[in-house]
């Protein structure tokens, strides 16, 4: 029993306990509006995890994740539009533009199964192809960032301009559709979606941890540290970058679908240039290269944004701009990175209140200490 509460085991099961508690208590404690917001922000955390994979670990700063986010959202949005119809009917907006027949690419979205795959597979494929074309030419660094941003603008203009295909700038509404017989916009359904989001965030987190924890993750970090070196070791970085970019695309797609169904609409605004850069700042503030930081950053920043926007809407851009500057100049590893590198201890030391000195049994196992010891013994002989 005592072992159950030792720091080590505690650290292992406590987070899970907290998550389960949160999942059970939050829907009771929070009013539906707040719960819905939290669900949306958690959904954004999935996209943030993808950005962390490609930027935090692999060093590729994509400013175009909105493409994949919106593609996932549109896939689900199209399905829900069709789902709300009687046989033979067309979604309402088509009549506004005089479209008589459903465009061919809408057809497969009648199927729920197809949609479940399309949500992540289409973004992954688009990301894979786009990534392959770019990485093959060894376009990297800021050039990669600029190109992803340009691609984002292409998609934005396309979706924005095509009323007859996907309702252009107005986007697709999802609230009136039914999911498993329940109205998508109803409180009960939104609570279910919150739980689903929570489960998927955890799933995405575990997936990313698996990806980054082993030798695959080592290879990603090696690409970030010294890509040519890895190439001369016999690895093909293009393959790795394409795979990880596709995974990030898939995560963004899932994130976009969950966000869409919880906010009730998907529109080309999801592909707006500023939104995709905002995603980067979530990861930067939370702590790039730390998976938990990506999720935390997404939730915290968006929560702050909604609070500030309710109270003082004009100041949000100042705060956001300030965050960009702050995180780049003063907090390069983000909040989680700062915490892990002993940030709180440094603050305490500044006010002359350092952590109590203690001896740890682990100290003797520290390689540096052992090295010192062996040197000592060697010298003594």
């Amino acid at each position, binding site marked *: 029993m005592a072992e159950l509460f030792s720091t080590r085991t505690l650290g292992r099961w406590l987070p899970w306990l907290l998550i389960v508690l949160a999942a059970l208590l939050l829907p009771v404690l929070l009013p539906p509006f707040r719960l819905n917001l939290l669900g949306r922000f958690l959904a954004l955390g999935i996209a943030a995890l993808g950005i962390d994979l490609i930027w935090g670990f692999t060093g590729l700063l994509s400013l175009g994740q909105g493409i994949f986010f919106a593609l996932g959202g549109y896939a689900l949005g199209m399905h829900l539009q069709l789902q709300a119809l009687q046989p033979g009917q067309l979604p309402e907006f088509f009549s506004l533009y005089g479209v008589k027949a459903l465009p061919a690419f809408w057809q497969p979205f009648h199927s729920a199964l197809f949609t479940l795959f399309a949500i992540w597979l289409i973004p992954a494929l688009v990301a894979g192809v786009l990534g392959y074309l770019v990485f093959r030419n060894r376009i990297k660094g800021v050039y990669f960032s600029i190109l992803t941003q340009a691609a984002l603008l292409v998609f934005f203009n396309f979706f924005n301009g095509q009323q007859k295909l996907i309702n252009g700038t107005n986007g697709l509404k999802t609230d009136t559709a039914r999911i498993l017989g329940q109205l998508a916009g109803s409180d009960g359904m939104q609570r279910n979606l919150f739980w689903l989001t929570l489960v998927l965030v955890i799933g995405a987190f575990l997936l990313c941890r698996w990806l980054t924890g082993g030798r695959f993750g080592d290879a990603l970090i090696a690409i970030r540290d010294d890509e040519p070196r890895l190439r001369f070791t016999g690895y093909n970085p293009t393959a790795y970058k394409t795979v990880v970019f596709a995974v990030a695309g898939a995560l963004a797609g899932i994130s976009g679908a969950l966000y869409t169904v919880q906010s009730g609409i998907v529109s080309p605004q999801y592909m707006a240039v500023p939104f995709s850069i905002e995603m980067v700042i979530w990861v930067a503030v939370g702590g790039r290269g730390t998976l938990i930081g990506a999720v935390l950053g997404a939730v915290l920043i968006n929560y702050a944004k909604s609070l500030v926007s309710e109270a003082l809407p004009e100041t949000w851009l100042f705060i956001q701009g300030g965050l960009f500057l702050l*995180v780049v*100049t003063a907090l390069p590893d983000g909040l989680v990175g700062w915490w892990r590198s002993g940030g709180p201890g440094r603050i305490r030391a500044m006010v002359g209140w350092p952590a109590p000195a203690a001896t740890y049994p682990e100290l003797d196992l520290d390689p540096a200490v052992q090295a010192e010891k062996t040197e000592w013994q060697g010298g003594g002989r």
Partner: protein
Amino acid sequence: MDLFFDTLFNGMAIGSVLVLAALGLAVVFGLMGVINMAHGELMMIGAYTTFVVQNLVKNGPLEFLFPIYILVAIPIAFLVSGLVGLLLEKTVIRRLYGRPLETLLATWGVSLILQQFVRSVSTAFALGLVLAVAVGLLVPRLLPARWGRQRWAPLLDLGRWLLAALLGIGLASLLGGVRVLDQPWFSARNIDVTAPRWLRGSIDLGALNMPVARLFILALTALALLAVVWFLQKSVWGMRIRAVTQNRAMSDCLGIPTERVDALTFLVGSGLAGVAGVAVTLLGSVGPNLGGNYIVDCFMVVVLGGVGKLLGTVVAALGIGILSYVIGSGSLLLVWPAMPSALNALVSFFATTSMAKVLVFALIVLFLQFRPAGLFPQKGRMVEA
């Protein structure tokens, strides 16, 4: 034939704005390798400077200047944007040399702040800001010098800026109670600049109709281009800039003040953005979002042209301009009315400004597949280590 000249002129007109807008970026990105996402906002500042100059001369003693206020606005916009750029370089970008991705994010933050600043700024706001900066900078002088050397000095820094911000916000909201002081200078709405009469008409050349404003922008672009080329190739500081671009360490050793060269390069690049801002006001109303409409296009121009090559920037911008016009106007249909219907449908599909952009950008990405370094790549042994 008329169609050919019409296309050429309109394409050049679109392209020349791009050249002007991308010129400053080509200088900053090409020569210093700095990604300035706030470049568009520096253009916006140039545009708002034009607006202010116009309002100053519209009525009152300076009214005689009104016919040429645009010409007056050009150097002023250059200076204002240049100085804002200089401030940006001294405070932010300087710390981030050699970290392009961080620079990108930081300058994006700056662009957000500048946008919102233009929307929110009022007299009360400005006074609050002045107070905040003054307090932030002055407090350390009032405190004992040894405090700055204590281990808690970083906390003190944090504290003084928090205090400064609070005082600033306090003053701004206090003054905000007064109607006159609370009036925003520009507000979030778009502003319109009235061009002087001589810039408004158009010149008719047979079937070809050339708006004077477009011709003016073409001339301004040519002039700015010549000035930049002269500055870089012939002036002493231009030579120093090129020297630092090619070999920073060696330039340092030869006594070239590299820090001042950086600052100057940035000032010139930012100033050019300001001039582009003046030109943009002639094309229609402008707003705080102006920068966002240009920044991605500008970067595409620079990347397509080949980083570090002014000629590439010009060719790429004009090429994009002409291509956009050809696709966007659907003028291919006029040349070849008997086009097969499938092709016809395709051409008309892309015959809007935003769809033309889709196709042009797709073509650029395709082009970079074959020439990753752009139209005019940097040659030589400077390959990745």
